[in-house]
């Protein structure tokens, strides 16, 4: 799980072009949206594409997104449970 979390941090930085941020700057339990990394709705779409492309996971129920995308911890847990 820890390895997946580190990989996710690298992927998010690359995919969302998070300038001046390194994986070490991201705390796995910090919120990704609003405070914390300050991501927005366009980033959420980018993460949905990333999950499908890299992990074969399609989020059917968009209402669950808020819960899944809460932090690196929740994202990694969801991937572990649902990856194909």
């Amino acid at each position, binding site marked *: 799980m820890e390895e997946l979390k580190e990989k996710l941090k690298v992927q998010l930085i690359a995919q*969302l072009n998070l*300038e*001046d941020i390194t994986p070490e700057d991201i705390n796995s339990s910090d919120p990704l949206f609003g405070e914390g990394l*300050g991501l927005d709705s*366009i980033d959420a*779409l980018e993460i949905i*594409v990333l999950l499908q*492309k890299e992990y074969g996971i399609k989020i059917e129920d968009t209402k669950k997104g808020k819960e899944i995308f809460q932090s690196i911890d929740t994202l990694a847990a969801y991937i572990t449970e649902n990856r194909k």
Partner: protein
Amino acid sequence: MELYFNAASAISPLGSFENESISLQPPDRALGYFVSREPDYRNTIDKKLLRRMSKFIKMAVSGSVDCLAAAGLEQPDAIITGTGLGCLTDTIDFLQQMNENAETLLNPTAFMQSTHNTASGQIALLLGCKNLNITFSQKNISFESALLHAKMMLNGDGYRNILVGGIDEITPESHGLISQTSCMRKFEGEYPVTAGEGAAFFILSNRQTEKTLARFDGISIFNGAAADSSFSDSFSRFFDESCPDADHFDLLITGSHPSDEVYHLLSEKTGDQKILRFKDYCGEYDTSTSFALWLALELIGGRVEGSPGSRPERVLIHNQGSGPCHSLLKVTAC
């Protein structure tokens, strides 16, 4: 109605941004094309917004913010931009994703940012400006079309200050493609034509202020493909109608090449006045006239080191690209 350029800002291969004076030195040709000397965009754009912006949008937003600040304006009455090829980086990203992912799983950012009106839209969003914003894409007269539109609006009612700009970017991929096509004129030898890029923005106003850089004395566009006689006859007629006072200009800034027929026609018509080939400094791109206009304003303002001759008061700008269209712009010191 008389119109004035009350502010100007450019990002170009000449290193024109945030410099009090510039030096007319040809840029580095090492890449095979000229790239803009970009400023630290963090000084003008929020870091959170910056991460989604390509060079095209960064140049446009920084140039327009700087231009508005120079004019002492918070918002323009309209935003009118011109671009020949639009947001190439994002367009190429988007097309590559379509190709690699079999038209599925496309990232939203590249898609959203790939439209030609992205620059105008981003400027409007950043300023919170709900006035008109529009983009002209007319090959090598894109900027001229934007300027002409702004001129017509200012001659009407209800407009005072319009932000007008020209932007185009070059990428290794686009340069590779353009080089293989007839999209760019090819000259080698003593005066090679090099592809380039840049963004230049202006506040065009129907009010003269203490910040006014020069008076705008008109713009004319000539479409050689629509000419009903030989090129030299029809261009001569167009020139004589547009510039009956050609002898009174101190400087001709042209985008034509010494090998072009029009270069010799212009030399004959304008007599012994100095000729400056502006594409030696910015390269060839569709909206390069915006750079030429910025350079003319800098020359009139005496802010260019190594400029040919004395400080000009009346400048005639001519441009042509790979297409059949030519343009003439006239600016005069106030």
